[in-house]
C-alpha cells in the first residue's frame, strides 16, 4: 500500500517536474536568445519576466480552438496529444537519483528508443491531416528526417550498452563509476547529440517547420492549445534528450558534494542551454544535405564505433 502511494507520488513529481521545466524553458530560451542577440527578451511580466509563461498559458488556453474545415478532424486532434504522451513516457525510466525513478525497467533504454520512435507519428499525422500543402511538405520532411535519425540514435547507443552490459538506465549510470562514458564513447556521444537535435527538430535541424521556407511546416494549421501541445512537446523533447545525454554519457546523478538529484538537474540544465545556444548560432542545412549527413557520415561513424568498442571489449576478454 505504502509502496503504491510512493509510486503515485513519484509519478506526480516527475510529471509535474517535467511539465514545469518545459514551460520554464519557454521563458529561459527567450531570455537566453535575447542575451545572445543583444536584446532583452520578455522582461515585463513579473520578476525578470518569469510570469511570461503564465501569460502565454492564459493566451493559449483562451484562444479559439479551431479545426480547419478541410482537415481530417479525428487525426488532427489526436496528433498533438501523441507527441506529448510519447515524450512524457520515457521520463518514467530515467533515474534522477539512486532511488528516484518511477520504474526501473530492465529494458529502459529500449523503452526510450521505442517511445521516441512513436513521436514521428505525431508530426507526420499532423502534417497529413491538416490537408494543407505547407503542412504536408513539413510532415514529409519530418517523417524522412526522424526515421533516419532514429536509426543512428539507436546505433550510437550500442556502445554504451556494450560497456555497461545492460539496457537498464540505472545500471548504465552505475557502470560509469570512475569514468563517464563521454570519454570511451565519444563518437557515440557526438552521434547521439546530433540525432537528438534532429529528433526534437530544433534548429539547425528544424526543417519540418523551417519558418523562412514552410511558414510553420507541419503545424501551420494549428492554433490555440493544440499548437501549445506541439510547443510544449518541443521543450519536453529538449529536456528529455538533455536528461538522456546526462544519464548515458555524463554519469547521471554522480558527482561530489552536492546531492545526486542536484547533480542530475545541473547537468541536464547545462545541455538544455547548449541546445538553445545551437539555435542561436547555426543556420539551417538543406533537406537533402541533412539526409546525406545522416547516411554518409553518421551511419558509418556509429557503425565504426560499435566495431571498435566491441573489438576492444573482446580483446580485453
Amino acid at each position, binding site marked *: 500500500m505504502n509502496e503504491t502511494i510512493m509510486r503515485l507520488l513519484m509519478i506526480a513529481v516527475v510529471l509535474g517536474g517535467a511539465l514545469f521545466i518545459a514551460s520554464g524553458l519557454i521563458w529561459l530560451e527567450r531570455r537566453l536568445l535575447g542575451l545572445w542577440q543583444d536584446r532583452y527578451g520578455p522582461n515585463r511580466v513579473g520578476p525578470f519576466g518569469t510570469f511570461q509563461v503564465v501569460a502565454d498559458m492564459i493566451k493559449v488556453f483562451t484562444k479559439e480552438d479551431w479545426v480547419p474545415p478541410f482537415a481530417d478532424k479525428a487525426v488532427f486532434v489526436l496528433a498533438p496529444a501523441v507527441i506529448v504522451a510519447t515524450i512524457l513516457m520515457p521520463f518514467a525510466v530515467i533515474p534522477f537519483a539512486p532511488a528516484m525513478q518511477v520504474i526501473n525497467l530492465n529494458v529502459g533504454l529500449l523503452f526510450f528508443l521505442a517511445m521516441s520512435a512513436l513521436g514521428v507519428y505525431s508530426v507526420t499525422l499532423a502534417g497529413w491531416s491538416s490537408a494543407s*500543402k505547407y503542412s504536408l511538405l513539413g510532415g514529409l520532411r519530418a517523417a524522412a528526417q526522424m526515421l533516419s535519425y532514429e536509426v543512428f540514435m539507436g546505433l550510437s547507443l550500442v556502445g554504451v550498452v556494450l560497456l555497461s552490459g545492460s539496457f537498464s538506465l540505472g545500471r548504465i549510470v552505475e557502470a560509469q563509476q570512475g569514468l563517464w562514458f563521454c570519454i570511451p564513447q565519444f563518437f557515440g556521444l557526438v552521434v547521439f547529440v546530433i540525432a537528438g537535435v534532429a529528433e526534437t527538430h530544433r534548429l539547425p535541424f528544424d526543417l519540418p517547420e523551417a519558418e523562412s*521556407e514552410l*511558414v510553420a511546416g507541419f503545424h501551420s494549421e494549428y492554433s490555440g492549445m493544440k499548437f501549445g501541445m506541439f510547443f510544449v512537446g518541443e521543450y519536453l523533447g529538449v529536456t528529455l534528450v538533455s536528461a538522456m545525454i546526462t544519464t548515458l554519457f555524463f554519469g547521471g546523478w554522480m558527482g561530489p558534494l552536492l546531492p545526486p538529484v542536484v547533480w542530475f538537474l545541473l547537468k541536464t540544465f547545462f545541455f538544455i542551454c547548449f541546445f538553445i545556444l545551437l539555435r542561436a*548560432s547555426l*543556420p539551417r542545412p*538543406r533537406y537533402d544535405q541533412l539526409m546525406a549527413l545522416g547516411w554518409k557520415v553518421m551511419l558509418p561513424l556509429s557503425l565504426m564505433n560499435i566495431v571498435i568498442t566491441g573489438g576492444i571489449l573482446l580483446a580485453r576478454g
Partner: protein
Amino acid sequence: MVETNIADELKRVFAEGVIACQQTADNVPTLWIDPERAVDVLRYLRSGIESPYAMLFDLTAVDERDRTHRSGLPDADFTVVYHLLSPGRNKDIRIKTGLRGDYPSARSMTGIWPNADWYEREAWDMFGITFEGHPHLRRILMPPSWEGHPLRKEHPARATEIGPFRLPAVREEEEQGALRFRPEEWGMKRHGEDTDFMFLNLGPQHPGTHGLLRIILELDGEEIVDSVLDIGYHHRAAEKMAERQSWHTFIPYTDRIDYLGGVLNNLPYVLAVEQLAGITAPEKAMVIRVMMCELFRIASHLVWYGTFAQDVGALSPVFYMFTDRERVFQIIEAVCGGRMHPSWFRIGGVAHDLPRGWDRLVREFLDYLPPRLDEYDGMVMKNSILRARTKGIGRYTLQEAVDWGVTGPGLRACGLEWDFRKKRPYSGYELFEFDIPTAVHGDCYDRGLVRIEEMRQSLRIIEQCLKNMPEGPYKSDHPLATPPRKERTMHDIETLITHFLNVSLGPVMPAGESFFGIEAAKGCNGYYLISDGGTASYRTRIRTPSFSHLQMVPHISRGLMIPDLIAILGSIDFVLADVDR
C-alpha cells in the same frame, strides 16, 4: 572601330528605317525607327556589331497625345522606348518607335532579350500597347480585373476623379476568382511522366519573400519544376504620381521606391532634373550627397546581410546587423532629421547644411563598423552550413546576367567590373579612391561577398568625405534650384518673384528629355524624365534594378529545391516597392 558614331552607322545600314535623330539633354543618341524595322535594328544592335548593345536596360512607353513640345519629332500617338546599354563601349542608345492609333500594337522583343517579357507586359498593362508575339501578354502590376491602362493620359490620377470604391460580396468573389492560378494559362502541365505536380502558392504573405510577392511553384516533391512570379501587390503608381506632383514635391515619393535606399533614390531623380535644367550642384553639396549615399548603401547592405542569414536559417545575425544599422540611422537622423525616408536632396543641392558635430558621429562610426564586419565574416560567411547552402546555388553566367539586364552586385559577382560610380562618375565620384569588388562564380555566396566588400569600400569613401569636406554653399544659385535660397529674396524684386513662383507653383523645367542612372544599393536606379515645359513632368519613367533582377528568379531556380529558392531570393536583395513602384 568602336568609336564610330552609332547613329551614322544605323543610318548607313538601315537607310529609310531611321526616321529621325532626337537631341536630348542627356546626350544619349536617340533614334526614331520605323516600327516595321524595329526588330531588325534592335537585333543588329544586339548581335550585329562589334561590342554590341547587349543589355536591354529599359523598355517603356510614352503617351504622346497630349505633348505640346514635339517640334522635329515624327508624329506618334504612343512611343515605345528601348534603352540599350553596351558594356563594351560604356555607351547607351535609345531607340524609339512611334505608333499610331488609340490602342496600337508593336512587335515583341522577347525573342531578342529574355527580360523584354516583363517590360512589355508592363507597357501593355500601363498603356494598352499590344506586343505581337509576346508569350503571356497579361497584366503584371495592376489586378487582373482592372479596367483601363493607368499611365494613359485619359486615365484618372486621383481617387476623387472616379466613383467611390465598393467591394460587394459578388465582386469579391470575382476578384478572388481572377487571382486563381490556372497552370494551363502559363503553358504548365499538371502531370509529369510518372508524377503529378503540386502547385504551391508561396506568398503573397510569406516569411521568405520579404514583402508582398506571390510565387507559384510547380513542384515535383520539393524540386521546383517551374515557377511563375506574381508581382504588383506593392504597386503605388509612382510614375503616375510624378505627372501630377511638381518637380520639387515628387522628391519624397522617390524615397519610397527602394525603401531601404533612402536618399540613394533621391539622387538619380535630382540629377536627372538638374541635367534637364542645366544646374550644377556646388562642390559641398556633391560631397555631402556622396557621403549620405554611401551611408545609405551601408544601411541597405546591412539589412540584406541580416535577412540573407535569416533566410538560410541563422536566427541571430539579423539582430546584430540591425543594431549596426541603427548606428547609421543616428548619423542620418542628426544630418537629415529623418531616418528611412529623409527626402533630403533638393534640385540643385541638399536641404540643409551639415549640423555641428556631424564629423564626430561619422568618425565614431568609421571606427565602429570594420571590426563588426570582420566578426560577421566568421559568423556568417565562413559558416560551413551557410556555404553549403549558398555556393553553386542560383548561379548565372555573365552572359545571362547581361541578357537579363542585371546590374549592381549581381553583375559584379559574375566577374564584370561594372559600377556606375567608376564607369560614369557622377556627383564627383571620380575624385574618390575606392575599389570595385568582384567575384567569379555568380552564385548566391559570391553576390554576398561582393556586397560585404562594398560596405568596406563605402567606409573608405565616407572617410574621404570626412577628411575633405569642402566649404561653401550647400545649394546652387541657379534660379530653378528649389527651394530657392532665401538670403537674397528680400533684397531685389527679381529674386523675390522667382522665389514666390518656385515655392508656390514649383519651377518650370525646360522641355526636353533626360535620363540619369546611378549605382544604387541594389543595382542601377535611373530616372527618365520628359518635360513638356511645365511644373510637373510629362512622363517619369523609373528604371529600378529589382524589377529586372526578380524577373530572373524562375530562370535560375529551375531544378532546385524550395530552400534554395529562399536562399536565391535572399541573395538577390530586392525590395518589392522597387519592383512594383
